[in-house]
């Protein structure tokens, strides 16, 4: 079993479009297990009331979703199994589609529940894991990630490009072996749990690093806010350390709190000969899909579909980023397919 996550930087950034194109790619020759961490595939958006892309699954695909939604799908499901996980819309079952059809996905919301549901995926399947809003935390279970972003996140293509580069940089952090769960303090190794996401936690990290022992490797577990980390870096006496390595749990832990763009400062402030930032595990970022669509409020609670010019929006972003980007609707699914082929290899 290998998992591809489709995560967005915001609602309406094209996750569903990317999911649908990915399902089509795998439909012919690959056993698929499809689920999501939110609610997707409905005809009209629950917040804007605007039409949404529908999710069609082919015959043979295994889908995990709330049972009432599987039962009301026009894709018929067999071999229904209770995953034992309950979501806000009922118990989540997995079932195999005996006929193609539209389905609404309402899957496990937490990483723990997601792991339970993925236990129902066959070993030889590709799992397509649909995201929700800008949620990314459960994507730590994914082997690879496709990021969806676009005008719904920001109409400013330059800001989008900066965010993509920051995410790309974070997702590309080197992976080092972790210390395990035992007490690893001592011998130049220190461990700090509870994350770095509150004011004062950076100071605590600096205090510990500047104190006796002069640890060479620090394992920080939990969520990390770039601003708090920057505060720590300002206080750490790097000259007192030789080859200091700070190891975080997972790149996704660096994407959950604070302003993503502050990581640019972290990386620019990193004297490579003295400080290495690494992670214990990672997820490969396959590519980024760009969506020019954004709902615009036109009166209290009413929304209309609007678009930025797709060609220039994509062109600007593509020209400013290192990782491959595509607009599936504008360019077709070719680039996405190449990423998925790479994933299969």
């Amino acid at each position: 079993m290998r998992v591809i996550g489709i995560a967005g930087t915001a609602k309406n950034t094209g996750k569903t479009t990317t999911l649908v194109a990915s399902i089509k790619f795998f439909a012919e020759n690959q056993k698929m297990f499809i689920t999501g961490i939110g609610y997707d595939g409905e005809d009209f958006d629950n917040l804007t009331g605007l039409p949404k892309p529908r999710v069609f699954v082919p015959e043979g695909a295994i889908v995990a979703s709330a049972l009432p939604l599987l039962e009301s799908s026009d894709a018929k499901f067999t071999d229904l199994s209770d995953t034992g996980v309950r979501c806000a819309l009922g118990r989540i079952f997995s079932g195999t589609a005996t006929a193609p059809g539209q389905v609404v996905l309402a899957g496990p919301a937490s990483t723990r529940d997601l792991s339970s549901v993925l236990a129902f995926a066959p070993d030889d399947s590709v799992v397509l894991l649909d995201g929700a809003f800008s949620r990314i935390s459960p994507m730590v279970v994914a082997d690879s990630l496709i990021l969806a972003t676009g005008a719904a996140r920001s109409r400013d293509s330059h800001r989008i490009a900066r965010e993509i580069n920051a995410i790309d940089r974070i997702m590309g952090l080197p992976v080092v072996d972790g210390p395990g769960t035992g007490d690893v303090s001592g011998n130049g190794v220190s461990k700090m749990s509870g994350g770095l996401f509150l004011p004062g936690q950076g100071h605590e990290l600096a205090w510990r690093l500047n104190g006796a022992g002069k640890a060479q490797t620090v394992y920080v577990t939990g969520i990390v806010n770039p601003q708090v980390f920057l505060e720590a870096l300002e206080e750490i006496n790097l000259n007192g350390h030789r080859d200091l390595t700070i190891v975080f749990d997972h790149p996704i832990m660096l994407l959950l709190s604070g302003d993503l763009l502050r990581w640019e400062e972290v990386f620019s402030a990193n004297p490579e000969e003295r400080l290495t930032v690494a992670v214990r595990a990672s997820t490969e970022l396959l590519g980024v899909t760009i969506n020019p669509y954004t709902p615009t409020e036109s009166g209290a609670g009413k929304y209309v579909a609007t678009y930025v010019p797709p060609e220039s929006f994509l062109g600007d972003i593509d020209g400013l980023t290192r990782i491959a980007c595509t607009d599936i609707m504008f360019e077709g699914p070719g680039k996405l397919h190449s990423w998925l082929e790479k994933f299969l290899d």
Partner: protein
Amino acid sequence: MEQGRSKGITPRKVVLAPLDPVHDVGLKLIRRKLLERGHEVTLLPPDLSMEEIVARAKAMDPDFIMISRALSYGISELLAKFVDLCDAAGLREKAKLVAGGLSMKPVIAQELGFDAGFGPDTPVEAAVAYVEGQELDLSTGSRRREKADLTAGFTYKFLDSEIGYLCTTIAQQLIDWANKHTSSGVERARLRIEMESERDSNPGLYSTLRNDYASLTSGEVKEWYLTGKHVSHTRPITEKEAGYIRSLLKNADSIVIPRSQDILNDRNVFVQYGTGCPVMDAYHINLSVAWGARGVVHFDPSWGARNEGLLEQAWSHEHDGTVLTLDNLRLIKGGLIPGILWQVRAHRGLNTPETVVLAHLSGADLTKINIVYGSLGAGTDPERLTVDGVEAMRLAAQHNLPYDVVTNEELCGVPAAKAFAGMLIVATAGVLQGGRPLLQPLFANSPEGMVTGYTEHNFIDFNVAKMRVLSSIIDAPIWPGAPVGFLTQTQDRCQSSVMTALHAALALDSGATAVTIASSDEAYAGGPITAPARVDTLKATAAALRFFGEGGISPTPEAERIETELREGILEVLKKVAARGDFVASLYEGHLGDKEDGAYPGRSGKGTVTLKH
């Protein structure tokens, strides 16, 4: 931290976090209930960042984290971020995440990644039940499942002996006169009963009877019986469409009843339907029931009242008014949720007796008959409708169908005193035949109200006076309508809903047994009545009842003066009619409403009454 005690409940650790300072009232209510039941509850201050909430919650190791925040497009991303933070911090290894607030509902909670979501209609008990692991879903309300008997407990005795004597005298005269006459409408009702009893068992006889029936029809209805040509603007209902209606009943138990509407459970609020399409009607009925309607009224198209004869089979009609046929009624009945009162009105046209027959055969609970309104305000010849109306009341009594006696001729300009006199005469005729009529005064800003100034300062006094005068005359159920609020509503749905709701609340506060309300777009609908507009007035009525509660509505002393004038007026009219000694003549001569009032004796069916052989 205070704690209560509650036997048999596993204490849970609950963190409550308001995500903005003005949305923590719900959480405070939840805290109180949870503490009373012995749970350990921490209500965090409202000025914490999401990261701070996560850190504090982490330190407490809770079983539940409940946040409150009014939802918007932008806020939804913040809530999603909070969910991610909780997840990454490991809180969800143990804790369930719950979101509450305006616009929150389960699908949005699911999309955001919460384990549950409670909207503004959710009672505190639902949150408590969730914490205690109960499957009971208290987020939805209940619906009374037994039908109310709207006439139960009423004796129909006159409390005003003078008016009672006059009404009885006039009513007996009109019954005696009508019993000596007949019409094609009376004959068709008889034929319809025979046809339906022979339809399956004796096709030959049925065919003969049907030919007899066709010979008594007119216009496009006759053409349909003779040639099969569809009546204008109609088409047959397909089997697929019929299936939609039947499926509604199958899913009746899954209808979500908003708890905020529970206050309507013990009130008999009726809504009218009649979109022309039975499928649409069935959906509108279900929607109305889900929002607290306890009864529905079938409206037929106006052409059906002017043609002799009713169609057979199931039809959709592209204009307002749903075609009256036994098949259409049975289809609609097939989708009706048990416990809902169903009225098929038969009050105004050339098919009045037969409509009562169809109402009976299709299982209706109520019908609607009024000779005076039908004659003076709805276009049917008075002589004809007197004959047909008396027969209709006889059939209604025979089939145990109560009926309201409506007074919508007030809308033409007929003063309430005259309309009420006519209503009381007809109701008395019904009682004399063993029937159970309900009085239906108009609750409206009627032309009379405007001209006399009765409604100049408020809409309370005139309507309360109507209720009081009727209650003082006879011990009979009163069902204001139909619908309430006529000529007070505008194109504005908010204004319209308020007016409807206040009239409904006034009626129920004044002792009405039932009330009929319109949708918020009904008074000025340029097209079909919309589903949201139906919900508007049902919600508004529930809100108005909640607002007034036991507080009641007080009229000014002016109500007493109007009541006195009404009683004097009713008495004066009844004396004139009694003196005339001929009810039908009184109708023609304007004793119960004349041309100056705006009432015109109808001409449909004129000259069709014959003496019985």
